[in-house]
């Protein structure tokens, strides 16, 4: 066991059943004192099975591991995944409350469910685009409650600038997203503002399921010169289709995430969800080790943005991948 100097403040008197089983002769009192890392329980509530969300979770767990919290040794992770079933979120939230030092919620509905169930346990969220709009925090700088975390708000303005630099002669820019995803609408509105501010036309078409994508994208492709796509789950899973149609009509596509570029987009300046999860773990450590109060921890946006280019797509469009750089 590695020892570390720890300034343990009193964490709200939590004694967990699992902790007491694993702890060997270590009184379950929350007295301060320098000791080895005691057993910590962390709850994780993930809304659905989805690549970005899972990466965020894995990043969170690896970062804890690097801080010497090893699952099965001194860390218990109570992981629940609602598989997109909102009826189960409530029960899962209730089962996690009161058992963990910190609960991580991944995606908006998971965070909302937890925030409804407890006003005491520290809750962290990740992969939430607009925490204020979702009612999770009063203010991004001063959350004011028991909830804070990391937002996956993408740098829309930079992404739009990138798109416009790739489609110099464009007059009309298309935006396509699933109207039933709250995060997508927020991003699409912002993108529309940014594009119109540059004096260009915007044409928005929406889908409701993966089945609509082919038809809607084809319709859109005939009417626009370039396409912007928010980090939309439905579009993310149909990017190969979108990419094919875009090539057919020779359109540059800038999607919201790196994964979507790999699956058929041209390029983006985006978030790495694993890094976002790591960033969230850093916030968890502040709560566990220093007794930080979520009410006073500002919501963070991603620290590590990266320019991702799909060279194959670039060459098919006759664009030299080397020439793609972030516009000033």
């Amino acid at each position, binding site marked *: 066991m590695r020892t570390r100097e720890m300034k343990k403040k009193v964490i709200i008197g939590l004694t967990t059943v699992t902790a007491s089983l694993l702890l060997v002769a270590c009184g379950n009192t929350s007295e301060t004192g320098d000791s080895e890392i005691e057993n910590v329980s962390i709850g994780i509530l993930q809304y659905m*099975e989805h690549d970005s969300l899972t990466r965020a979770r894995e990043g969170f767990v690896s970062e804890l591991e690097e801080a010497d919290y090893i699952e099965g040794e001194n860390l218990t992770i109570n992981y629940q995944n609602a*598989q997109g079933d909102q009826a189960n979120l409530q029960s899962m939230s209730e089962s996690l409350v009161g058992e963990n030092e910190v609960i991580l919620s991944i995606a908006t*509905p998971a965070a909302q469910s937890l925030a409804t169930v407890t006003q005491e346990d520290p809750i962290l969220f990740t992969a939430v685009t607009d925490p204020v709009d979702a*009612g999770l925090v009063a203010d991004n700088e001063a959350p004011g409650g028991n909830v804070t975390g990391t937002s996956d708000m993408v740098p829309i303005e930079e992404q739009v600038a990138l798109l416009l630099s790739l489609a110099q002669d464009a007059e009309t820019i298309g935006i396509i997203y699933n109207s*039933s995803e709250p995060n997508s609408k927020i991003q699409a509105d912002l993108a529309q503002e940014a594009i119109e501010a540059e004096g260009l036309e915007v044409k928005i078409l929406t889908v409701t399921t993966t089945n609509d994508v082919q038809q809607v994208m084809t319709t859109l492709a005939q009417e626009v010169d370039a396409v912007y796509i928010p980090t939309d789950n439905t579009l993310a899973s149909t990017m190969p289709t979108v990419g094919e149609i875009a090539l057919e009509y020779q359109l540059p596509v800038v999607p919201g995430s790196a994964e979507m570029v790999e699956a058929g987009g041209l390029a983006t300046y985006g978030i790495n969800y694993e890094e976002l999860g790591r960033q969230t773990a850093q916030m968890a450590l502040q709560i566990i080790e220093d007794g930080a109060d979520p009410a006073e921890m500002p919501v963070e946006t991603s620290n590590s943005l990266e320019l991702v280019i799909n060279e194959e797509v670039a060459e098919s469009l006759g664009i030299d991948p080397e020439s793609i750089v972030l516009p000033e």
Partner: protein
Amino acid sequence: MDIILSSISQGLLWSVMAIGVYLTFRILDIADLTAEGSFPLGAAICSITIVSGMSPLIASLLAMVGGMLAGIVSGLLHTKLKIPALLTGILTMTALYSINLRIMGQANVTLLGQETLMRSLQSYGLENRLAVLVVGGIAVGLVILVLYLFFSTEIGLALRSTGDNEDMSEANGVHTDTMKIIGYMMCNGLISLSGALIAQNNGYADISMGIGTIVIGLASVIIGEVIFHNLSFAKRLVTIVIGAIVYRLIIDLVLQLGVEPQDIKLFSAIILAIALSTPLLKKKVKKAKRIVGRELN
């Protein structure tokens, strides 16, 4: 104990929807898919009304009225345009998707920090789960009482006879079309009300809330019928409430068992299948006993 209390309180809220599903099941002999649209419709109307500053009680009632309107649309499609009931449900559900988005203006409306029925009870010093229990209990009690009284009236009896034997009712001068429209209207009103209650309980209304509604409703109805069969109307409604609670309990137990998250749906389905096949198993056991008994004599 905690999990049981949690299942009961949530089961009560869902049971309002299950009763709605049961009635269409009885009156039309079909699972009305309108439910998958009218459930989030209730959530949408309720959340928007609450956010705009109205009382949660008025919001919940408005949600119910919205559901009734959706039911009337389904009823008209089915009776006047002669569209089969299954397709009618699919049509209305599809249309409601866009309507719900229009109502909410976005895919997810939060109720965190807003006044809800549960929260107004909490201000009287009730603990959260207890507040849900009280709200659910009152809602279910009122629904059963009103339905019980309604189904003893002349219209109510005509409605039930339409469900039992349409040709015979028509021959006796019952306007079966009108009865069906009334049935659709009542059921979807209840389903929307349930959506409104669940949204207040969950802290948000979401466009995807309706997915799986009909399954939860039918499962509750069937479990209720499996546990107690051949009952009078009022008692049957009570068994559906119990069915909804048992269904929630089954799912919550599965979640508690520490099943791998990806296997949850599989386990839910297996356990439900076991619950639903008990009547047949019982029969077989009885028959086997009889045969064994005969051989011994």
